[in-house]
């Protein structure tokens, strides 16, 4: 069965870049969200067994999404994809429950590498 996958980023181009970087032939059912509020709705609807999450977004940022997911006890494997390359940003999202952190710009090699690392393929 297709895995419900959420791509949450305010930039249309960034969402397309993530989609383009997905492994070939990966059986996923993709939902897109343009900010954290839309992202939370999708997670609550069960559309995010896995999610790729941006940090810097309007309305609700990625840090807040991680906090809400934890507080509401929601289940989602979250991989953060962000332009915020400060080491502390990585530490913060990992402490908040993210599985891993990928620096932008994203490409297939980086994304597939992380999925393989955790045996998600």
């Amino acid at each position: 069965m297709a895995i419900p996958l959420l791509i949450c980023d305010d930039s249309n181009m960034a969402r397309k870049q993530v989609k383009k970087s997905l492994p070939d032939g990966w059986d996923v059912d993709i939902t897109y969200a343009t900010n954290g509020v839309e992202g939370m709705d999708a997670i609550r609807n069960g559309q995010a067994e896995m999610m790729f999450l941006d940090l810097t977004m309007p309305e609700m940022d990625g840090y807040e999404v991680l906090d809400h997911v934890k507080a509401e006890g929601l289940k989602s494997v979250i991989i953060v994809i962000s332009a915020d390359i400060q080491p502390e940003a990585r530490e913060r999202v990992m402490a908040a429950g993210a599985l891993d952190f990928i620096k932008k710009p994203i490409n297939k090699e980086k994304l597939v590498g992380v999925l393989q690392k955790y045996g998600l393929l």
Partner: protein
Amino acid sequence: MKELPQYTEDQRDCLQEIVNVAMGQAGDSLARLLEVFVTLSVPKIQTLSPSEVRVALRSFVDSEYVSAIRQSFHDSKGQDGLRGEALVVYGDSSFKELAELLAYDDEELSEGLEQELLLDISNVLNGACLNGIAEQLGEELVYSPPSILGQHVPVEKLFQQDQMRWEMALSVEINYSLEQRSFNCDLLLLMPDTAIDYLANKLDEILEDD
């Protein structure tokens, strides 16, 4: 009057994401320099005519007086390529915050020291941002050394002794929050219309790849 070139929504989104990645790199450099965690926000990007720049700057930096650093850049294609002037503009209140963060006290902050600080911070922001943009566009840029365009001057005065010829500014409004403090600066890329068209074509190439 010449009509202002407008970028399409796709071009603007593409440029915004490119700037976003570049700002992340600049934020990291700034965090290392100041030894604090920098909270990034979404940069606001707009294209402005020379008269609009003054109005936008006044409202964004929220300060009567500003200080600004300029640095020119160009690629290897000469007149038809990517070229322009990068300006980093600070409101005076933001600049004071920065000086405090770097543990300068008021008496210590002579005009000379302040110039040094302005140049240092702008170099970090400008360098990381322009390099980040150039890298993603697949361009190599050459820069002039940064110089001070104005120190504690009214916004209007910044553009008076204007030797630059430019038809449009790409304004990137950046807000960095540093723990209990926050400061704003505006990175302005002033470009002639040939460079604006060149950039539009570059963005289209990237969009076609996607």
